[in-house]
């Protein structure tokens, strides 16, 4: 049965909250604040009981697929298991019940945790310094590009261009644009890597940065990375690492060693903080020494004399601030817990198993789905549904049909360089049995398409709703519930 809107549940006089009474002499409000500043009509919020709200949200939650309930191989999103201990630690009052402007004498623990997290991220990525301030991956990108802008500006010329491969996430060109750069797109070659000759041709003294994801969104390692780095640096450009796919490289190789000058990480991907239905995440940014002076303010200071921590705001070259206060503390504490749980040996295993799991899926499906890049994949595999498209079913049809088997869909139609792309990222936390069931479903779907491609056009068949009319949603825009049509 359809769950009504919270507004449909409203009945005058119901209430779901108890607040203390005001126990001092109460003056009329208009004596405290001028009448024209006061609200004249109550906000039309629903009037419901606490149980109404609890049942409503609980029932709605049951309409979702999630990592806790379903295999979620959404490529480039690293939907790995979110350990519960991370939430327990982050919810401790010693972390959750701190005001950001409390004196440092009362927050030594959280400052120590931040410093430890910065150090572990440096060790994992091979960078020199980290800021934890950015609230998400795209926010980290913008931070990184503004750092690059400040770096070049300090040397006399901010430069005007940023090179981005055609396989990049849309956030890369968008962030570069916001940072005031003109975007130059470089195509990929047949192996799914950056076309090195085209790259060479695009590189000149106006290029401020080269943004790369490695492994790229094609799921393959950039084998020319050292050469690319050398070329970029020779032209005076900096190399930017989009950490979206870092789950392929933990303990295997480090962006800092490859020559990257700036990296952003997505802790909600690599370090397992819950995706929350679309945030909050966090996007720490790491830099090489030369960029450290520009990092956002404040930075953690650790006194050598007495071992105490404090915030240092006195940073004359800083780019300023990207976010109020210090960042998404609760998310950062979860990431730290995850890293400490794994330790050096556990982290080494993360990428190894993620890569084996992805290649296992590749090996078991490449006879039925086109595999545009025949070399071994890293942590994710990008198939093309071209063959199925010719038979009459699109990548979207395959994605929708998978939901009927109890699997979340892969990422589809991205990267844009692969027609009918199906991007599958199993992560290291799925068992062989789960992968086998997923493979069996994908094989069955390929068979269904061969037999009757039209049958998939109405998939999914078992979900709470069938396909949603997105055209109507956009043309007859209803994004704010006003009232029920009679």
């Amino acid at each position: 049965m359809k769950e009504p809107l919270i507004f449909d549940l409203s009945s005058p006089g119901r209430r779901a909250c108890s607040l203390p009474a005001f126990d001092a002499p109460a003056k009329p409000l208009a004596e405290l604040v001028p009448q024209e500043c006061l609200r004249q009509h109550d906000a039309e919020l629903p009037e419901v009981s606490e149980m109404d709200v609890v049942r409503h949200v609980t029932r709605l939650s049951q309409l979702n697929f999630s990592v806790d309930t379903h295999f979620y191989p959404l490529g480039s999103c690293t939907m790995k298991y979110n350990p519960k201990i991370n939430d327990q630690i982050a919810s401790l009052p010693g972390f959750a019940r701190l005001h950001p402007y409390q004196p440092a004498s009362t927050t030594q623990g959280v400052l120590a945790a931040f410093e430890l997290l910065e150090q572990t991220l440096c060790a994992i990525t091979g960078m020199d310094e980290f800021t934890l301030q950015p609230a998400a991956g795209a926010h980290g990108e913008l931070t990184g590009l503004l750092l690059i802008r400040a770096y070049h500006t300090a040397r006399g010329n901010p430069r005007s261009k940023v090179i981005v491969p055609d396989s990049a996430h849309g956030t890369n060109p968008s962030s570069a644009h916001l940072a005031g750069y003109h975007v130059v797109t470089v195509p990929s070659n047949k192996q799914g890597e950056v076309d090195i000759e085209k790259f060479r041709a695009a590189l000149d003294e106006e290029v401020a940065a080269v943004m790369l994801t490695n492994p790229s969104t094609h799921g393959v390692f950039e084998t020319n990375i050292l050469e690319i780095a050398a070329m970029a640096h020779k032209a005076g450009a900096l190399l930017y690492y989009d950490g979206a796919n870092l789950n392929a490289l933990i303990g295997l190789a480090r962006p800092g060693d490859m020559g990257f000058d700036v990296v952003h990480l997505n802790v909600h991907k690599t370090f397992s903080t819950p995706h929350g239905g679309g945030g909050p995440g966090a996007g720490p940014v790491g830099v090489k020494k030369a960029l450290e002076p520009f990092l956002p303010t404040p930075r953690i200071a650790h006194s050598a004399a007495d071992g105490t921590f404090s915030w240092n705001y006195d940073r004359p070259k800083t780019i300023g601030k990207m976010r109020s206060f210090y960042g998404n503390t609760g998310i950062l504490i979860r990431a730290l817990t995850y890293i400490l749980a794994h330790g050096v040996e556990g982290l080494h295993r993360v990428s190894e198993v993620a890569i084996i799991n992805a290649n296992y899926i590749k090996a078991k499906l490449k006879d039925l789905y086109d595999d545009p890049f025949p070399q071994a994949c890293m942590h994710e595999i990008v198939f093309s549904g071209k063959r199925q498209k010719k038979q009459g079913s699109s990548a979207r049809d395959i994605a929708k049909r998978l939901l009927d088997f109890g699997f979340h869909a892969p990422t589809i139609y991205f990267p844009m360089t692969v027609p009918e792309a199906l991007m599958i990222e199993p992560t290291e936390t799925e068992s062989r049995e789960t992968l086998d069931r997923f493979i069996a479903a994908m094989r069955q779907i390929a068979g269904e398409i061969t037999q009757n491609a039209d049958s998939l056009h109405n998939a999914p068949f078992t979900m709470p709703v069938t396909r949603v009319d997105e055209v109507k949603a956009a043309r007859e825009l209803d994004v704010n519930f006003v009232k029920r049509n009679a």
Partner: protein
Amino acid sequence: MNVPTDLKYTESHEWVKLSKNNEIATIGLTDFAQEELTDIVYLDLPKVGDEIEATTECAVVESVKAASDIYAPLSGKVIEVNQAVLDDPALVNEDAFGKGWLFKIKLADPAELEELLSDSDYEEILSEKERPDDDEDEEK
């Protein structure tokens, strides 16, 4: 594919209809363009009085999963905008060469007319094109 013979075209899939004395041009999107975009849900058109410059971006058209720039086929001053397509963008899908027209301009430089394509030139461009792949979305 429908390509009326009484119109001029651009490589970026706009059509132009000229008034008798070549003073006023009515501009729209071709049938090919609307089909490629799929269901159009929103148009951001220039305003009456705006000066637009040939071959530069002057408007945006959005479908559910794609957005595309519209390039001015000719330079000139916008003298009329089709309110009906702003209210109901589906008109562009339903009648690209008729009720789905977008705006009219008063030509600044009739010499630019030389740069436009004839219907046969445009048809040749279309025949070289394969229908591209399905719409796109990215999930990060």
